[in-house]
């Protein structure tokens, strides 16, 4: 662990970090946007002109009011050690897992509902065919839906962006190649890795465990089990060399404390464990 940082610590690369951090690009964009004053309507000029004039007159008060108000600001929801439910302006709901960031506008645009996600979230989307709901995932891909519920995992430490659809259907596409698009239906799971989207035929039973608290193990190898538990309980678990890696485990964990899971593990697999408040050590029984 000590050898790696050496070549990366080019301290000069961090000298301007505070400058970058002090710039509020979202706020400044609303200033520039206001100065530019984008055309509100770009299409159907001839047909709509007459109608537009009527509407304009009717709504001049409304627009004047809008014009002088500050543009809708960006909302940022960030979770740390706890999960949190976010209510979006369109009535949709997102349950954010730990260490997740969701940004969304205070008020959605007229033609779409765009949010940005880094981390993991379970989305329940209010149906609105005129405004597709688009999740921009850690700048790597998009998930686009009309009304449905689905889970997205895209933490920085995961190689892949994973999506599972619980209800309805979604379009999943990569930022790298416009061609790479997959339609996912109820029950489908897919992964985006290196610009390629692959359907997961070997479904991860535990994709929603963080939300439901239920973990299924079915003849899973001990290393898989430990990985899952470590992620789920957010605890460091160390597997001692004395543990037989061939051991497998079958059980359903239903909202249990980690202690009771470890008890069960040691009972079924014949291993021992010890824990302090920092980490858990699992050893084999001689």
């Amino acid at each position, binding site marked *: *662990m000590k050898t*790696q*940082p050496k*070549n*990366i*610590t*080019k*301290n*000069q*690369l*961090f*000298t*301007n*970090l505070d*400058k*970058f*951090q*002090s*710039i509020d*690009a979202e706020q*400044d*964009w609303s*200033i*520039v*946007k206001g*100065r*530019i004053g*984008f*055309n509100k309507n*770009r299409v159907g000029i001839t047909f709509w002109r007459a109608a537009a004039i009527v509407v304009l007159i009717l709504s001049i008060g409304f627009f004047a009011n809008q014009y002088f108000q500050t543009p809708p600001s960006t909302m940022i929801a*960030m979770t*740390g050690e706890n999960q949190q439910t976010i209510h979006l302006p369109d009535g949709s709901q997102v349950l954010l897992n*730990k*260490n997740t*960031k969701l940004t969304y506008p205070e008020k959605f645009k007229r033609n779409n509902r765009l949010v940005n996600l*880094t*981390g993991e979230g379970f989305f329940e989307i209010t149906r609105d065919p005129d405004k597709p709901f688009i999740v921009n995932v*850690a700048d790597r891909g998009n998930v686009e839906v009309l009304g449905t519920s689905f889970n997205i995992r895209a933490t*920085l*430490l995961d*190689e892949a962006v994973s999506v599972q659809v619980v209800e309805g259907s979604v379009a999943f596409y990569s930022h790298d190649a416009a061609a790479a698009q997959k339609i996912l239906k109820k029950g489908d799971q897919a992964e985006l890795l290196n610009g390629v989207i692959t359907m997961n035929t070997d479904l991860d039973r535990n994709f929603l465990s963080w939300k439901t608290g239920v973990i299924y193990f079915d003849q899973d190898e001990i290393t898989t089990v430990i990985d899952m538990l470590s992620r789920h309980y957010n605890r*460091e678990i160390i597997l001692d060399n004395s543990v037989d890696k061939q051991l497998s485990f079958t059980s359903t964990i239903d909202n249990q404390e980690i202690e009771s899971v470890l008890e069960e593990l040691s009972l079924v697999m014949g291993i021992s464990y010890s824990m302090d408040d*920092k*980490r858990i050590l699992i050893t084999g029984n001689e």
Partner: protein
Amino acid sequence: MIKGIRAGRESSYARLFDMYYRPLSVFAVKYVNDLDIAKEIVQDFFVHLYENRESLVISTSLQSYLYQSVRNRSLNHIKHQQVQKKHLDHLSHSQETTEELEEIIRVNELEHRIFQIISELPPRCREIFQMSRVNGKPNKEIAKQLGISIRTVETQISNALKALRKTLGEDISS
């Protein structure tokens, strides 16, 4: 993207702004020595870019066009300030060679990328990483200050480095 910019599409400008506003502002500071002035220069430039979008001619890459424009605007700003003498020494920047400028741009973009990655890290991980790599605190001290184990500090730093290395790849080791 250039097409969208010429067409005056808001989404294209929003994206361009998102990609370049921060790095261009930090870049302009190298000339004008003040972040607020730098930001103003870059904002003015974005407005100018929109107003003149139809006559926009980019002979090089979009990136170097943006940097060149901001550089010129920054140098102009300094010239206007010349009367005040104190800025004179910054004019030396106008002497840099094309290669030097390219290198400045490359490092600046890299710094921006690092900023982006760091700002996406989980809050705790980011805090620990900054204490260590930016403020140069020893792991032991960080652990003590935050009341966590040295092991956790090491893990978090290693996670942050992993995220950096994953995105930056060969750039970072060069």
